[in-house]
């Protein structure tokens, strides 16, 4: 049964990922050393895609948890459920990964409350032990188990940060938007746009990124460029596609919308 469960988390086809620097080598080494990895970087720059790619490359199942405020320790570890006249223990995603040997990916980890995250502490140091107090079990993590978390240090305030005791358990890889040539290549691959058009989309993104901190919290991400590109390949006019996928999602400030649209027109 456990193999069947894990199978559903396996990534069968190679996800498209274009290495920006030596992140693949770093991740492989961290995996070999079973050093938990933290991926830092702005939204939409390819952190999740990278994890998927690495899970595929290392042939490990990938269990992803999108973290949020309401998440409690039992949402990660597991809980007792009623089953007919009796109770039954249901493993949470982190416990499944630790028991069966998968990569557990906690996306946007700072969104979880700090007291919840403390449960990962024993499994992220050399003990590799997951303690399940409700079940009175200390689970020795599977040899293949690996923990990866992601967070975006950009827009969180001082109050939304990880505890130092949590942070220091990880090795961190910093991500940023890819360099121009790579980003063009990614947009072409993901959308099938012509090189010229992809170049122009990337110019628009570069222009918007200059407004970060000058009205914008985040610039246009690679993901948004792919969105715009896929609208264009479905026959939407370039300017309308950019408006829908790049400008409007980014800001509600009418002055910024005007400035961004003027930049879009200047780039096309």
């Amino acid at each position, binding site marked *: 049964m456990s193999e069947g469960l894990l199978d559903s988390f396996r990534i069968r086809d190679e996800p498209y990922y274009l290495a920006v620097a030596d992140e693949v080598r770093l991740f492989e080494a961290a995996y070999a050393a079973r050093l938990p990895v933290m991926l830092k970087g702005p939204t939409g720059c390819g952190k999740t895609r990278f994890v998927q790619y690495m899970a595929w490359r290392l042939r490990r199942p990938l269990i992803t948890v999108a973290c949020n405020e309401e998440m409690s320790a039992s949402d990660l570890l597991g809980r007792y459920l009623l089953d007919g006249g009796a109770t039954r223990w249901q493993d949470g995603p982190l416990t499944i990964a630790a028991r069966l040997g998968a990569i557990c990916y906690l996306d946007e980890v700072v969104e979880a409350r700090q007291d919840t995250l403390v449960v990962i502490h024993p499994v992220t140091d050399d003990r590799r032990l997951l303690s399940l107090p409700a079940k009175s079990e200390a689970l020795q993590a599977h040899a293949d188990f690996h923990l990866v978390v992601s967070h975006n240090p950009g827009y969180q305030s001082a109050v939304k940060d990880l505890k130092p005791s949590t942070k220091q358990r990880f090795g961190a890889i910093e991500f940023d938007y890819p360099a121009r040539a790579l980003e063009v290549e990614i947009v072409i691959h993901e959308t099938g746009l012509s090189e010229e058009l992809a170049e122009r989309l990337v110019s628009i993104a570069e222009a918007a990124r*200059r407004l970060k901190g000058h009205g914008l919290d985040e610039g246009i991400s690679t993901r948004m460029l792919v969105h715009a590109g896929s609208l264009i390949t479905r026959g939407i006019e370039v300017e309308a596609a950019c408006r829908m996928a790049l400008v409007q999602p980014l800001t509600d400030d009418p002055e910024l919308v005007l*400035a961004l649209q003027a930049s879009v027109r200047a780039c096309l």
Partner: protein
Amino acid sequence: MTSNSSEGAQAELPRAPERFVRALWGFELRVAPLPTPTNQALARRPRFVGKRLWLPASPLVGVPGSFNDYLFAACAHISAHLRFGAPRFEVKSLKPAQIAIISLLEDARVERLATAQYPGLQRLWAPYHQARAEGAKTSSSLLGRLARALHDEAYLDDDEWVNKGRQLFLQGHRRWHDTNLCRELGGVLGNDLGQMRVQFNAKDYVVQPAYRDDNVGLWLFEHESSADGTPFESEAVRRIESDQAPKQGERGAKTNPARHGSASEPASAVQSAATSEPASVTRHAEWDYVIQRERPAFCSVRDRPIAPGDAARVASTLARYAAVRKRLERSALRLADRRPLQVRRLLDGDRLDLSASIAALVAGRSAAQPDPRVYRRLRFLLEPPALLLLLDLSESLNARAPRGSSTLLELAESASSLLATSLASLSSDFAIHGFSSNGRHDVGYCRFKDFDAPYDEHARARLAGMRAQLSTRLGTALRHAGQALATRKARRKLLLVVTDGEPSDVDVHDPEYLLFDAKQATTGNRRLGVTSFCIGLEANAQKSVHRIFGAGNYTLVDQLESLPSRLAEVYLRLSA
């Protein structure tokens, strides 16, 4: 209630063009509205000097398209000068016509370089090139046609001079990065124009198309030679200087009849006088308890400049309060954490607490007493309020605290810097202002730290430059502060007032008058959604602050040395 004469004739420019330039090139411009020219007949053009920009604040006559597009076009053009332009050309012995032609070529050159990077700019500028190959061949029409010919390769012209200009410019395309190119070509074309006997009148010359700047920023005019120089350059220099000169001088010279009027003067006279006040004066009403009526626009508040002091001194006195500061910072951090709290195991709540429900069911099945607390609830904390700390900076603050070596002023300064330091890392939604008055026409208002401004070295230097002088017209200051606070977006608005006694001023002899007025101002602020709280600096302040702010809305600090920590405590208590 007030007439705010700072809303003058100049409309505000949208901020979008500045952002557009930052997006394109990554640098910041400082944009200001172009002053209305004295000579109405002369068409207005944008102007830049360095990274300062002046743009028309209203649409120009005869310019097509939307005003926003015009501003974008103008900013794109000027930013191309800044990005690709040469250091400013020297005028030397050039004739006005040559200056105009060289500028025109330079305009085309930087635009070409900018369009190479942002091809869409071509379309942004195109609608403004309206010159056509027809009509009399005056210098203005020829220059307009040359501008269009250089911009638009599809444009056809029958004039030899225009075609020669285009040919020379296009032939030189390998040298478009060379800033000397335009000077060379412009010299040639200028001579040709002279030999064609086409008159060039620098006084009437207006740059075409309309989005382009008036070329002042391209040239280095020698101040000394401007007297005998061409009218073209002397006009430019004169206009820049008159634009930039602050209007300080006018303020003193104007005698305002309202200032010398009696208290019973009709309101209409005050209103009309208000319109001629200089920009930075705000007028507020005052409550007269004798007639039980408000005197409209009765008191004038003006911003007082602050001579900066030694910022390092503020930092060093802060060290004394390290313990308080730490506690304050921790509490402020807790305050800023706006994440909802999960409250579990409740008898009553919005949703089931799953683990508690299961535990209860399990207990039921195993014949134990189930715990009925199976609900949970999200508790949302209040956001911290927008804060304005208003300091009474009247002469009496120079007194020493009874048992200490510090003056009240120094304590007020430490208290504000302590609060500011602790809050600064979390929010900039707080301001520290101070006031002192010299009669109703001169209520001085100092902004040590304003809303949204960073609490930085400059703000600290301003705090260190705090001076205590003159009197306390509290009501007017309360109105002024309350209105500043009322514009903030935060749901709660807190006005913290630090004062050392009852209000007084040189032109008021009835002690009750200002007291009633301050009470009225507090009531008015409450109507604006502003909560006031007062910290009285002396035991004998009780009677007056009690009357002004009401029971429970003030606290008295008897041990004056503890003012900084008391202020912090009050803030925390009121914002939790």
